[in-house]
C-alpha cells in the first residue's frame, strides 16, 4: 500500500504549479472558515458555539483532496481540475476531518434541557456545523454569477432552495456517499432551472 507521503512527493515535489494550488486552496479554506466562524446564524454568534477552525485539520483536508484530484488527473487528460471536482473532494474530506467542532460537550453546558435541545438553533448549529460550512463552500465554489437571471418565480424557487438545502445538509450528515457521487450531484444541481438553488444573487429576479 502506498503511503500518503509517497503520494505527496509524487504530486508536489517537482510541481510548483501543484504546490501553488495547494497553498491557494489552503489559504482560501482557512479564510472561509474564519469568515464562517465570525458570522451569525439568526441571533447566534457561531463563535459562541464552536471552537476556532482547526488549521492543522484544514491542511490535512486540502492535502487529501488534492492528492485524490491529481491522482484522477493521471488517468484523464484534462488541463485543470474543474470547480465541481474541487467542491466535491474538499467537501468529502472536510466531512471526514471535521475541522470545526462544538465548544460545549453537554446540553447543560449549552444552557439547554434535554427536552428542548433537539428543537433549538444552537443545537442544529453545533451538531451540523461542518455540514453547514461545506454547503456554504459548495455554493461559493459552484454557485452562479450575478449576471445569470433566474427563470422561475422567486417565491417558488426560494421554497425549493430552502427544501433542497435542508435535505442536502441532512444528506451530508447522515448518508453514505463518495466524492465522485457528490461531484455528479453538484453537476446535476447546476443545470437550469435547478441551478438557481445555487444562485448567489437570488434578489436579481
Amino acid at each position, binding site marked *: 500500500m502506498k503511503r500518503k507521503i509517497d503520494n505527496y512527493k509524487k504530486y508536489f515535489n517537482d510541481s510548483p504549479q501543484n504546490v501553488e494550488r495547494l497553498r491557494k*486552496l489552503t489559504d482560501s479554506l482557512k479564510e*472561509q472558515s474564519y*469568515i464562517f466562524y465570525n458570522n451569525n446564524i*439568526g441571533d447566534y454568534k457561531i463563535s459562541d458555539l464552536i471552537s476556532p477552525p482547526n488549521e492543522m485539520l484544514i491542511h490535512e483536508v486540502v492535502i487529501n483532496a488534492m492528492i485524490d484530484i491529481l491522482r484522477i488527473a493521471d488517468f484523464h487528460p484534462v488541463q485543470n481540475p*474543474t470547480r465541481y471536482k474541487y467542491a466535491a473532494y474538499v467537501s468529502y474530506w472536510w466531512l471526514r476531518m471535521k475541522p470545526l467542532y462544538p465548544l460545549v460537550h453537554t446540553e447543560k453546558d449549552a444552557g439547554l434541557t434535554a427536552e428542548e435541545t433537539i428543537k433549538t438553533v444552537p443545537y*442544529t448549529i453545533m451538531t451540523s456545523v461542518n455540514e*453547514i460550512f461545506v454547503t*456554504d463552500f459548495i455554493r461559493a465554489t459552484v454557485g452562479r454569477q450575478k449576471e445569470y437571471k433566474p427563470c422561475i418565480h422567486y417565491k417558488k424557487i426560494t421554497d425549493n432552495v*430552502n*427544501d433542497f438545502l435542508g435535505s442536502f445538509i441532512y444528506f451530508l450528515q447522515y448518508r453514505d456517499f463518495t466524492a465522485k457521487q457528490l461531484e455528479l450531484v453538484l453537476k446535476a444541481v447546476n443545470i437550469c432551472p435547478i441551478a438557481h438553488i445555487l444562485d448567489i444573487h437570488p434578489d436579481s429576479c
Partner: protein
Amino acid sequence: MEYISTNEFIKQITEGKYPCVVLENDDEEIEFEKITENFKEITSQENHYDYLFAKQQGG
C-alpha cells in the same frame, strides 16, 4: 410546443437565447481568491441561513 434538434438547441444556447443556461470552460484554472470572495458575499446576506429555520417539505 416547438421541437428543435439538439444541434439547433446548442446553437441557440451559445447565442444566448436561454440566459439561465451556462456553458462553461472547465479547463480554466480555478481562482481560489474568487471563491473566497463569493463565500464572503453569500454568507453576508441577511437571509442566507433562513433555510435552517424553514420547514422541510418532506421526503
